[in-house]
């Protein structure tokens, strides 16, 4: 049973899109189980994802919302959805990422048939999560998403490491879900047992402060875990690299965003903002996640692990935006809050685009060489130029370079921070916090540039560092097309930053239940503090065209008739070897030294000499950084808990007399209690 509130133009199509998307995903899953036609599955899920994309864009353009509900179990609706603007934004992001990911494996054979079937269902579960508007259907979709993604990570024939990665992932997300469940139950309890979000929003103002804070803490912990923000990130860099690349693309591009979506949905939409402290808290979490995420990413030389840590970084940037929004919303600066919230959404969409692109690129490289380790790659640009081009676009976008989309959203985030730091509504300490976050964000973007110069350069430029890299070949046409699509999206979203941002601003305002814009809070033309000074603006399209023009002019001018003379690379006069090049590890070395206090590197050099001489026959160098949280906190805590469990097991000591004593004592205690 489906209804759309007002039949705006084209809105009548939207239900069809929704049904089609889900149906196609289910069909794709079914098809994947049938040996003869299983090759059709990726095509079908691509179609489904495109439907989801269309649905998201349609909802955004028409401004209507889509409601639907499905079968019941124990009187609880398994499907009860309402797609509003917020859902639409994330749905569109999902559509981009999922379509490309599904397309990239057209013609590939999945690791196993169950996994081939699980992928479309995983996509369907995300669609349902993004729309659910009642506690049960949300958690049902949420947990299905968790389980399916965990299965996709682990697969049918995992190695021991992958199994443990899957366990860590499942454990953390499941406990996090328990927190969310309790928070939802509290909301239900304080709204007379109602389980739907609308009733909760209605009851939210009446919440006792303590209850509200408990709820906020629980949902924050729960959703931040799914989002992979520090210090809840431990599962992420283990799980994402283990999955096949197209799965990692969706997990990293969209699934962790459902955590962000949940935060916005519950805190901003349902609860109408948190207490004064919450914004700063989220802001701090975001800043830490951003800086530490990119630092750890720089230290990785496994391509997919590097990208996984970058997901933590980008979640951090999104959280900086969200934190700013909450900070300002709690202090009544609605216009700026909406701006910051729009920034967070914008970066979520952008990250979905370029992170999926990069993961698909990494997948193409792994597919071509079978290598994960950057230190064995190199010179792939000559073998796979298309991949290099799109990967470069993705790298530039994620590094936040104008005029691409990453820069646009980071620009908005910066504006939000400037606004918060300058706003009179905010007390000085919080303003200083925002100002400090500006520094953190700047550091993050600069480190991201370093990291992606390293990733791109070491992989695609220079000489191949291994035979496998030398023998690489370009990836399949569908994969190339998928990556090209995402690269185009990165460019378009960057150049169309203005309209996109203003659309998101509308969504943000409606999500915050704020009226129409009062000040000139439209983009491009954002006043950091309305009234004073001149609008700080970023005219993406014109700047982009200007840059392009300048580049074109210079390039044309400096082009010569005569072709260049080819010579060997200068290596002080001896024949160049691949071993002369900087590796990924050595490239990141200066930064490792600069930040050695935080990264705590351990180096180990092992030299073997030619017998009898002082001439080294082989030198092996290994450098590992210490993940402080894991090493110094979590591992000891784990050990302690196991010891505690062992101690508790002494209760069951085996002597029947002891057991009788338990019973007697319990009875006596009961009798005393009942007196």
């Amino acid at each position, binding site marked *: 049973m489906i209804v759309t509130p007002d039949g705006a133009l084209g809105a009548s199509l939207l239900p069809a899109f929704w049904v089609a998307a889900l149906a196609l995903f289910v069909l794709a899953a079914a098809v994947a189980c049938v040996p003869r036609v299983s090759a059709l599955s990726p095509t079908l899920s691509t179609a489904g994802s495109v439907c989801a994309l269309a649905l998201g864009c349609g909802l955004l353009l028409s401004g209507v919302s889509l409601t639907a509900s499905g*079968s*019941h*179990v*124990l*009187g*609880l609706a*398994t499907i009860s959805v309402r797609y509003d603007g917020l859902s639409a934004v994330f749905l569109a992001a999902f559509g981009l990422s999922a379509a490309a990911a599904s397309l990239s494996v057209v013609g590939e054979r999945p690791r196993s048939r169950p996994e081939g079937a699980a992928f479309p269902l995983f996509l369907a579960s995300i669609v349902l999560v993004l729309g659910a508007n009642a*506690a*049960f259907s949300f*958690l*049902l979709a949420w*947990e*299905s998403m*968790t*389980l399916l993604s965990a299965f996709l990570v*682990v697969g*049918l*024939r*995992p190695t*021991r490491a992958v*199994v443990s990665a*899957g*366990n860590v992932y*499942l*454990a953390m997300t*499941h*406990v996090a*879900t*328990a927190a969310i*469940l*309790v928070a*939802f*139950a*509290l909301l*239900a*309890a304080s709204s007379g*047992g109602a*389980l739907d979000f609308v009733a909760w929003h209605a009851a939210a103002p009446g919440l006792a402060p303590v209850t509200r804070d408990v709820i906020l803490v629980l949902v924050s912990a729960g959703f931040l875990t799914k989002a992979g923000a520090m210090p809840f990130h431990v599962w992420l860099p283990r799980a994402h690299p283990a999955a096949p690349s197209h799965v990692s693309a969706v997990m990293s591009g969209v699934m962790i965003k459902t955590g962000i979506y949940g935060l916005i949905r519950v805190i901003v939409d349902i609860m109408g903002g948190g207490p004064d402290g919450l914004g700063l808290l989220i802001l701090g979490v975001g800043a830490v996640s951003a800086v530490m995420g990119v630092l750890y990413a720089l230290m990785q030389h496994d391509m997919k692990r590097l990208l996984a840590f970058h997901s933590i970084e980008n979640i951090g940037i999104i959280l900086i935006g969200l934190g700013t929004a909450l900070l300002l919303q709690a202090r009544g600066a609605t216009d700026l809050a909406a701006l910051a919230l729009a920034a967070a959404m914008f970066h979520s969409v952008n990250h979905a685009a370029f992170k999926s692109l990069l993961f698909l690129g990494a997948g193409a490289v792994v597919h071509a060489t079978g290598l994960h380790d950057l230190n064995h790659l190199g010179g792939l640009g000559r073998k796979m130029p298309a991949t290099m081009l799109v990967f470069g676009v993705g790298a530039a976008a994620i590094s936040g370079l104008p005029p691409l989309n990453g820069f646009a959203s980071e620009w908005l985030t910066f504006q939000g921070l400037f606004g918060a730091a300058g706003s009179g509504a905010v007390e000085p300490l919080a303003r200083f916090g925002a100002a400090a976050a500006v520094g953190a964000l700047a550091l993050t973007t600069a480190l991201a540039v370093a990291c992606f110069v390293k990733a791109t350069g070491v992989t695609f430029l220079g000489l191949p560092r291994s035979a496998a890299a030398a023998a690489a070949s370009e990836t399949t046409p569908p994969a190339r097309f998928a990556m090209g699509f995402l690269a185009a999206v990165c460019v378009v979203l960057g150049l169309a930053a203005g309209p996109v941002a203003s659309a998101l601003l509308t969504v943000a305002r409606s999500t915050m239940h704020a009226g129409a814009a009062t000040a000139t809070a439209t983009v491009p033309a954002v006043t950091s503090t309305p009234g004073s000074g001149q609008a700080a603006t970023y005219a993406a399209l014109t700047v982009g065209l200007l840059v392009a023009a300048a580049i074109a002019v210079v390039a044309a001018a400096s082009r010569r008739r005569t072709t260049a003379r080819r010579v060997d690379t200068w290596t002080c006069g001896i024949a160049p070897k691949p071993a002369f090049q900087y590796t990924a590890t050595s490239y990141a070395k200066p930064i490792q030294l600069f930040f050695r206090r935080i990264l705590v590197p351990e180096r180990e050099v092992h030299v073997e000499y030619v017998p009898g001489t002082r001439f080294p026959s082989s030198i092996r160098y290994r450098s590992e950084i210490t993940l402080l949280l894991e090493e110094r906190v979590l591992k000891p805590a784990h050990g302690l*808990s*196991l010891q*505690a*469990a*062992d101690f*508790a*097991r002494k*209760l*069951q000591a085996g002597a*029947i007399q*002891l*057991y*009788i004593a*338990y*019973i007697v*004592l*319990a*009875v006596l205690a*009961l*009798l005393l209690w*009942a007196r």
Partner: protein
Amino acid sequence: MNDWVVGVLLLAPIIGGLIAWPLHGRLVEFVAIAAFCVAASAGLGLATAVPGAGRVTAFHGGVSIDALGAYVLGLTVIVAALALWASPRYIRHELAAGDLRPGDEGHYYALFLWFVATLIAVPLVDNLGLLWVAIEATTVVSALLVGINRSPDAIEAAWKYLILGTIGVGFALFATLLAYASSVHVLGESSDALNWTRLMSIAPHLNPNLLRLSFIFALAGYGTKVGLVPFHTWLPDAHSQAPSPVSALLSGVSLIAALYALIRFHLVAMAGLGSSFSSTLLVVFGLLSMAVALPFMIRQEDLKRLLAYSSVEHMGLLAMGIGFGGPLALLGVALHIGLHAITKATLFLSAGELAQQYGSRRLSAIRGTFRAAPVAGGALGGGLLMLGGLPPSGMFVTEFAIVVGGITRGYWWAAALAALLLACCFVALAVHGSRIVWGHAGPVEAARGIDGAMALRLAAPLLVVAALGLWTPGPLAAALDSIRAILGATGV
């Protein structure tokens, strides 16, 4: 008419057992299955008659089955059917391996049938005294089953089960006496002074002191059979040492039977004392059970003990849910009872398969079932996921209902802790399960022949549990509703 059905229902297994006792080989299997089929048809007939009539009585009210009783009866029949279906394969292997002596199979099937008979009797009788007799009888018979293979461990487990069970249920007798005393004050000496229906009708007039004491002793007594901490100590021993089909019956049904008795007392106490007293106790002991079961699940070396402790955990959850009250939680409890029974039975059956194939129950030995034992291993893994309450398991729904119901009823801390403990217990199960399925297998006995019957027997129940997580069929929904009404969600 009903008298006859009930008579057949109870006598068929007893007589079948008597016939089976001296027999050997295929014949005894045939006898057992035949006798059980008769009883099962009678039992299902009765159970299905209840929803229409609301209450089926026989023997002048001596037997009186309401929706709750019918539910427990139906579950007993279903789980017993699964266990009996799995028995021949299991017992033959035991005989071949020399763990059972030739001739024991006759005793096994006889005792099995008698155990089923006692279990069936529990939900039938209306008289709390006879209810106690039936529960005690289950202890005696199942104690013989637990120790049927004469290994020292089995004897130890059976011995502890017998002694602790008798002492515990002794307290239950005490509770019954007190209830009787209180009702005799009101009714005077009459044969139906212990009938639950009568007690409920006169509950408000009962002496509150007696009632309070009575519930306390019922909690201790039937709590022992339910496996609530700290009365649970016999449970992991007995459930792990018994032959796997019997473990399935013990964990699947006999716990529920005892819980059924406890519920009866709880309802009387609620009717007489108001909800707070007994509910609080149930919540406290339920929480305690979940909390104590966790460490034993985290560090566990024995597969069947792992499952047994998970039973303790789930019984704790059910006790809590009953204590919470309220429509949502009780609906969850009603469904959870059935889902847990079916899932746990299946898990024990698959665990038995694995234990026999690997020649050990040690978790460190049972590894890499993905290759060595795809069906049983898959069933175990899937069952553990179902038990952990991940969708599409029906237990996701029930656990959601119980936790949310609890918090909406104001039991914030208890329900929140329960949610946390549930998650942690799932983590423990998942870690063990992943090692079982994918761990590095040691030297494995050549994979036993996968017979289709086994695959069906292990897969079908799990599929049912999964299906019930997505959709509740109309009749079942109606039945659950009436059970909830009985459990006292009326008017909430």
